[in-house]
């Protein structure tokens, strides 16, 4: 089966620095795949390759067996949505508008109907608003629909970011460190949520997850890919990866450092 997203032997170099080398991975429908690795292992670069922010020098991508040349603003059209580290919300838009913005590619009315304020544009807006409210409701944050993002606690803002991505009705959701800055309780709730994504009643989606938080990754992922210095050093189900000596060497040795930088970041906030 060729379904889902596949990366074939991706290589990315920034000048003399090798960010990714010969990285292959696949996310099939219904799967939650985690990418872990120490800081600078190439996790974010990997996401940027999938989103089209970075063009790999070698290798190729495919989606459902067809070659994929991603461009960021076309992603949602292809059924791929991504959340950003932090929250990446639009500060000048309400929560509802943020989520509506996520479903931009489903809008049909063009510039002229919008300029003339025609009912066609209004219908579009009503449909987007209802859809956005449904997603907000699903994530349990519909009461904040009218609020400005800045006024909300971080955990809620993080969910708004998730809602914005889900509003695009993706078949594949890329989560970039969704647990960053969350408390233990919130991480547990997030884990339940992520596990449920491939089984949503409407618009079920596979998940590719980049995360530092080991407990979360171990709890939600069907498969884990471990990166170190831009290479895949291990891949497999969580229990196998946890035991892998290469992982213990490369990753757990660095967890202390990662946690320290995390603590520093929180201190700065």
């Amino acid at each position, binding site marked *: 089966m060729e379904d889902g997203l596949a990366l074939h032997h991706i290589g990315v170099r920034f000048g003399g620095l090798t960010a990714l080398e010969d990285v292959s991975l696949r996310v099939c429908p219904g799967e939650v795949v985690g990418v872990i690795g120490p800081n600078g292992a190439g996790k974010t670069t990997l996401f940027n390759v999938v989103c089209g922010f970075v063009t790999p020098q070698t290798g190729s991508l495919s989606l459902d067996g067809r070659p994929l040349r991603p461009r*960021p*603003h076309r992603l949602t059209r292809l059924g791929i949505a991504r959340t*950003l580290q932090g929250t990446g919300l639009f*500060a000048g*838009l309400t929560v509802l508008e943020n989520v509506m913005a996520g479903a931009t590619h489903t809008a049909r009315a063009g510039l002229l109907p919008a300029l003339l304020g025609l009912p066609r544009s*209004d219908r579009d807006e009503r449909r987007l*608003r209802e859809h956005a409210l449904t997603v907000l409701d699903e994530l349990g944050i519909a009461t904040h629909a009218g609020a400005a993002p800045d006024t909300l606690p971080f955990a809620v803002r993080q969910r708004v970011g998730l809602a914005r991505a889900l509003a695009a009705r993706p078949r594949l959701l890329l989560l970039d460190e969704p647990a960053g800055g969350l408390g233990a309780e919130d991480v547990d709730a997030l884990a339940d949520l992520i596990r449920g994504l491939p089984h949503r009643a409407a618009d079920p989606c596979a998940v590719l997850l980049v995360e530092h938080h080991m407990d979360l990754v171990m709890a939600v992922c069907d498969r884990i890919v471990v990166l170190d210095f831009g290479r895949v050093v291990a891949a497999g189900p969580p229990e196998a990866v946890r035991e892998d000596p290469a992982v213990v060497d490369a990753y757990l040795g660095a967890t202390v450092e990662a946690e320290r930088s995390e603590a520093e970041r929180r201190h700065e906030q």
Partner: protein
Amino acid sequence: MSATRAVAPPARHAAEPVRPGRSVPTVLRHLAFATGAALVVLVLSYQLDSFRNFQLATVAAYLCATAGLTVLTGLCGQLSLGHGALMATGAYTLALVQNAFAERGLTAGGLLILSLAVAVLATVVVGAVVGVAAARLRGPYLAGLTLAVAVVVPALTVTFNGVFNGEQGLSVPMAPAPRALGPYFPYERWQLWTAAVATLLCLVLLANLVRSRYGRAFRAVRDDEVAARLAGIHVARTQVIAFVVSAASAGLGGALLAVLAQSVSPGAFGLTLSLFLLMAVVIGGLGRLAGAVWGAFLLVALPDLTHSLTSLFTLSPAAAQRLEGNLPLAIFGVTLIVVMIAAPGGVQGLLSRLTGTLRVRWRHHRS
């Protein structure tokens, strides 16, 4: 982006509250509002003397430009120092078309609509060219590009002397007010009607756009370009649309100014005008069409104010003239700084905060 961010506070009040189940079409709501405004202008046009009528018409002309600029800078986050030049494009195009009509003996008043349309179209073309370049630039580089436009366009009128008649400028032949209005109908009142109708139509279109997904895309692009792209928004295209729409509004404003003054000259559309427009928009309340209204009033009222201010002192005519020429800019600058410190949301921001407080008090009072 930092330069633009500095002048674009989050337009929190532009955010739409949740109002489910509304079914009045946007265009009807905005048209109803415009009709109300038109009635007010109609009443005022009979209450005010000819000079005030003319001033109000000038406010309407400036309002097109400030409204367009507030959408571009306030909502889409693109700074433009070149809107004065876009106004000049509209004004000169209108003058050329009106002259072409007059040379062929076409003097029907209705042709003005065609002239205005051509003027807007010409500005759309210029705006599209500048907009495509602008979409590639950020912050100070964007400011630099638009600044160049502001300087180059008036200079072109001198370079191509044969067409634009240099510093002298062009006269704009205008048809008299329709005969049906009677022989003693003040021309200024007719001018106000013309300008008000054109401006209100422009505002309705802008308000429709701002309320649509395009308005949301403008603000999304302003707030976070990466997130906007990932949300499926074509950032460059959105910025070009904002620039073109804004340019079209400025072109209409410039054309209306030419209609009112019945002449155009490069002096009226210098860099100062661009700076004035920007300051007016910021003082009025960036990103809000209502703020653009305050800004337009300010643009007309301020020279008037400085004139009466300088006439308070006994000065030599030369000194008075110099002072009058520079005082508006100085006062505008000072006002801008005061507004930025005291009320970053501008006049309109202050007003909506005030009405918000009053509403809360009123509810408190009733319960």
